């Protein structure tokens, strides 16, 4: 039996349908791969029986010809998605023993398409981080290493670091991620895989542990652009249980894939040429421009004048929403309780001090401050106004272009521990990802090449509202031309 774990979702799907191999064989190989890669710390819970049950159901259904789009495909699920009866902790001690009695809409949709679950994937605590180092389970270790012969442990990116590490290490064919300010795209770029954040509202947020509700979106992380299209189609869709869910049909993104970009104008924002970005990243961006031109696109220079204000805007809005969302962890309804002293208030304070990690406490504090009496207008309202201007920048740019191309991140993967002492330096790693989040736009990272240290770099495509198809198609055009085949050398 060849290595089924090297195949894409499309190949697995077609192979299962054709009877080249059984879904059970796929699940068994993946379960074994998951169990043999625990050094990466990518999974927080393994659910081999879940993967096998979905595989057996697919093998049984094959005779009838009624197979869902992901029938028998075992997936990794970020630990932010509520999964019935399976620990859902958001990487936090405060939810350590939480076993939901319900399933998130996105994972329910994936199950309806026939997918199984390999396990829950590690992540930054409450998705607050860009390196997976804030997890209560400890960091995920990237399967990638620098080509200098050293063994420095690298960050897989974050917050969806378990997802990115699992897909790039071949211990999940694809995984769910969530993106609040780059948490799908930056880890995808760090590990040489694809990841798309759809338009805000495409995927239901119901059953996803909330971080910043006006920004949080789920999306797929996978080996190829096609796999992202297949998986996003299964994840997306209107959900009455999410008040911001978009009541629109889900396009047939896979069927619509085309790398012919004739007639498309691709904007290159001059404000994204910032100081301190390694030359390799600028060079890759230039290659990306050539690839898209080669695919038929016209390249135009555009301006997004408020780009430099996106990160400070984000670091007011996201902590503000987080401080409100995380008020629910009170030691009463679910999760940890620490009695403390001083009655009910003492219990609240002791529980939250013990249950939240340092970065989450820091963000709750900032969020509480910017929402507090006397400071609300100066910080929160001001940030919401600048957010309007950032959104307007994109609206105006999309009068001149159909898509925007930028690098995904200002660096390749950094070492574990390199940025933990300085929260600001960690925040700055999302400089290219955050503006599209603030504007709710679909955006994708596609691997473009390796830097001089042998680490993956990503190219980032931003589309108009609801134009996931345009983003995927441009991603496909890059994928075909970049011919990115590098894989991490197995050391784990």
């Amino acid at each position: 039996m060849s290595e089924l774990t090297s195949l894409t979702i499309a190949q697995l799907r077609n192979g299962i349908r054709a009877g080249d191999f059984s879904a059970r064989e796929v699940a068994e190989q993946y379960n074994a791969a998951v169990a043999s890669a625990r050094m990466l710390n990518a999974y927080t819970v393994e659910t081999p029986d879940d993967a096998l049950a979905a595989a057996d159901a697919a093998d049984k259904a094959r005779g009838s010809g009624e197979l869902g789009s992901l029938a028998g495909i075992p997936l990794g699920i970020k630990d932010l998605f509520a999964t019935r009866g399976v620990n859902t902790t958001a990487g936090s001690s405060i939810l350590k023993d939480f076993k939901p009695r319900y399933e998130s809409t996105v994972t329910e949709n994936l199950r309806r398409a026939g997918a199984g679950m390999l396990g829950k994937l590690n992540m930054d605590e409450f998705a607050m981080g860009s390196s997976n180092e804030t997890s209560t389970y400890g960091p995920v270790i990237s399967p990638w290493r620098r080509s200098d012969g050293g063994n420095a442990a690298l960050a897989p990116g974050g917050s969806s670091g378990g997802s990115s590490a699992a897909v790039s290490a071949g211990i999940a064919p694809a995984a769910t991620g969530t993106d609040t300010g780059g948490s799908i795209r930056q880890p995808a770029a760090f590990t040489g895989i694809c990841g798309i954040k759809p338009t805000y509202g495409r995927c239901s947020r119901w059953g996803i542990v909330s971080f910043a509700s006006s920004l949080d979106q789920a999306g797929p992380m996978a080996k190829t652009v096609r796999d992202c299209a297949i998986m996003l189609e299964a994840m997306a869709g209107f959900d009455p249980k999410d008040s911001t869910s978009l009541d629109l049909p889900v396009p047939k993104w896979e069927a619509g894939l085309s790398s012919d970009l004739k007639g498309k104008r691709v904007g290159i924002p001059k404000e994204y040429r910032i100081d301190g970005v390694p030359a390799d990243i600028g060079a890759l961006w230039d290659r990306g421009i050539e690839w898209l031109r080669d695919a038929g696109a016209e390249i135009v220079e555009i301006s997004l004048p408020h780009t430099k204000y996106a990160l400070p805007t984000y670091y007011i809005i996201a902590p503000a929403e987080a401080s409100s969302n995380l008020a629910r962890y009170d030691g009463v309804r679910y999760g940890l309780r620490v009695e403390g002293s001083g009655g009910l208030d003492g219990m609240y304070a002791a529980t939250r001090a013990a249950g939240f990690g340092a970065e989450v406490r820091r963000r709750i504090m900032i969020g509480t401050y910017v929402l507090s009496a006397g400071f609300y207008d100066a910080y929160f309202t001001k940030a919401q106004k600048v957010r309007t201007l950032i959104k307007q920048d994109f609206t105006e740019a999309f009068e001149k272009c159909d898509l925007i191309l930028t690098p995904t991140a200002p660096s390749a993967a950094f070492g574990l521990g390199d940025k933990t002492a300085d929260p600001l330096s960690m925040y700055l790693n999302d400089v290219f990802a955050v503006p599209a989040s603030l504007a709710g736009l679909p955006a994708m990272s596609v691997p473009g090449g390796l830097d001089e240290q042998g680490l993956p770099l990503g190219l980032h495509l931003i589309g108009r509202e609801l134009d996931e198809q345009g983003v995927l198609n441009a991603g496909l055009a890059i994928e075909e031309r970049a011919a990115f085949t590098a894989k991490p050398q197995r050391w784990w």
Partner: protein
Amino acid sequence: MSVTNEQVRHIAKLARIAMSDEEIERLVPEINNILGWVEQLGEVNTDGVEPLTAVIPNKLRLRDDAVTDGNKRDDILANAPVAEHGFFAVPKVIE
């Protein structure tokens, strides 16, 4: 603007997070560093700009005023740290 130890202690109280004096000492410069950085938003002229409230234009839906859910008491209490007699239990608040 920058925050003082006293203000940080007050924010911690509002956020219901117990904090030692050492942690407050440590947080003050961290928070001030971040606040100093976000203050660059002051450079942006936002006169006459409406704050963004919906990132993608969307109608707030209303649904029929009908019971669509319920009878889930045991599910709801299943993850409670302490539940008694079908209720969440909290430390005594009334003597």
